[in-house]
């Protein structure tokens, strides 16, 4: 048996790797190496090149009810309008289908619900599902407040408030402008473990001087 026969399958695999790999090296703009948010990066790149041929459009045309297609449409919409909340209805629709293989989806829905000041029970439901399906996830949770009226650095104060919960670690806090044009303060928390109760965490931060946001305009 000759060497070509003996290692035939390896040669086939190597051949594909070399040809496609060369293409990848030559043509591909660099992606995030950890693979996080690749869908977002993909949409950005393809939209920038040719908005008519994006993955989201293709998938939506092929499978309009597919959760991944709907999720990508949300990314596309929020990117094209430069407004995160525009994608929320799509993320929620995709989430309703019950798929669990897309962790980004959980994360985006949580972000939407938090920004929209949704019913705490609804937010907790998605957070519980997220931690249950991805107990080892290192994606952070963002809790949004109006401002910090306490004493000292808000990040340190938040870290101190949550130090009794070793599964929570405050990464940083950041001031932003929300969709209504109001200045808000996000507390970014690293979570570990399969369980996370949001309300007690929020309560601890409120007690330390973080201010609750005013209710949304459409609330009763």
């Amino acid at each position, binding site marked *: 048996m000759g060497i070509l026969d003996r290692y035939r399958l390896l040669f086939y695999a190597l051949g594909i790797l070399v040809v496609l790999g060369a293409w990848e090296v030559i043509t591909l703009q660099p992606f995030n190496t950890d693979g996080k948010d690749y869908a977002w990066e*993909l949409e950005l790149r393809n939209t920038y090149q040719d908005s008519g041929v994006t993955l989201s459009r293709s998938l939506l045309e*092929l499978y309009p009810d597919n959760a991944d297609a709907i999720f990508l449409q949300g990314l596309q919409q929020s990117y094209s309008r430069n407004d995160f909340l525009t994608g929320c209805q799509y993320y929620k629709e995709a989430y309703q289908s019950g798929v669990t293989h897309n962790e980004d989806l959980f994360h985006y829905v949580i972000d939407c619900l938090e920004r929209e000041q949704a019913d705490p029970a609804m937010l907790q439901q998605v957070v519980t599902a997220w931690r249950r399906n*991805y107990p080892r996830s290192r994606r952070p949770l963002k809790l949004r407040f109006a401002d910090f009226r306490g004493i000292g650095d808000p990040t340190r104060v938040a870290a101190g408030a949550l130090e009794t919960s070793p599964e929570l670690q405050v990464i940083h806090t950041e001031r932003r402008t929300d969709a209504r044009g109001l200045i808000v303060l996000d507390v970014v928390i690293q979570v570990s*473990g*399969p369980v996370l109760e949001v309300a007690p965490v929020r309560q601890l931060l409120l007690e330390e001087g973080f201010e609750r946001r005013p209710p949304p305009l459409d609330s009763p």
Partner: protein
Amino acid sequence: MSSKSIHPHDPDTGQARLFQIGYILNRRGDWIWFLALPLVALAAALGSQRWLPYVALASVNLWITIPHHFSTWFRTYGIHEDWQRFKQRLIIGPLVIFAVVFAGLQVAPITLLLVIILWDSQHSIMQQHGFGRIYDFKAGSGSPRTPRFDLALHWILFGNMFLNAPLFVTMWLRELYRLNLLIPVSAVRFIQLASWTVTVAYLAVYLVHVLVSMRRGYPLNPIKYLFIAASYFLWYTAAWHTASIMVFGIAHRLMHGLQYNVMVLHYVKRKSRGTANSSRFWLLRQLRAGNLLLFAVVGLLYALCFQLITLAPLDEFGFGLVHLTDHYQAIPEHGIKAMPGWLGYHMFAEALISTVAVVHYYFDSFIWKVRDRHVQEGL
């Protein structure tokens, strides 16, 4: 294939048989592992999707897929005959593959992922084709051209699923887009239509092949076709039923991994018959003799080592239902903190060490009785 198995005749009528039943293991074993297992695996996957979190997919990987890799290592490196026959490939192959994977991760990770997806699919096709060949071999069924027709059948049926099922289309289309190979929807639809056309046409061709073979006196093994039908029922249902990778992943891994393990065990058992099983090591002798319990235990220990070496959490053994770190929740009223992940791991390690010590205490409590006549003999 042995020549005596071709053209079997009915002993009473002397006429050629149309059907010739043959099993891989035996009647009962085949019904369990090759015919019913795909259906059970599918039900388990659907149940998992409903009641278990996504991390259950990792658990199935640990309980089934990784031990099935161990079976390959055992067959190749643990059986003297195979080691001698394939020595060069068994040494060079892993070195080349490791180097290529390492380089691929650095230079072209998307291409590497695509190649792994394709190779995984080819591997799945070839395993089911291989079992089909064993069915014909055991029954003495099929014509000399049947292997090629069977192989083409598998490629076309699996390829059709790969090109049409939304689960797969979203996957390969996404990877192609990542590679900046932008395929328009019209092209995808054309490929899919062509794929269905080829599939239907080939099924007709295959049917003609079967009829011609039977007319020429080559019998058919119906169990082989039941097996193929069961396999594709699992794959097609899982791929089309839901967009969830979890359902397909669990169903496929259960079928593929368990059938492979059963086959390796059966193979080593048969091979050990009548051959000298002369290893110095008891464990190797037992494994070569096909000791089922030991095989399962060593496979799981291998998975445990794999998990520890890759620094992956041991929680993944628990289908998302067992959490080592979940035993001690915080009690803020008493100033007691919840158990963090690293402490949970240490607890587990401590429990293992303590268990070994306590088992030693327990055994010593009854094996060293000086009043025992059997013990006295050794003093």
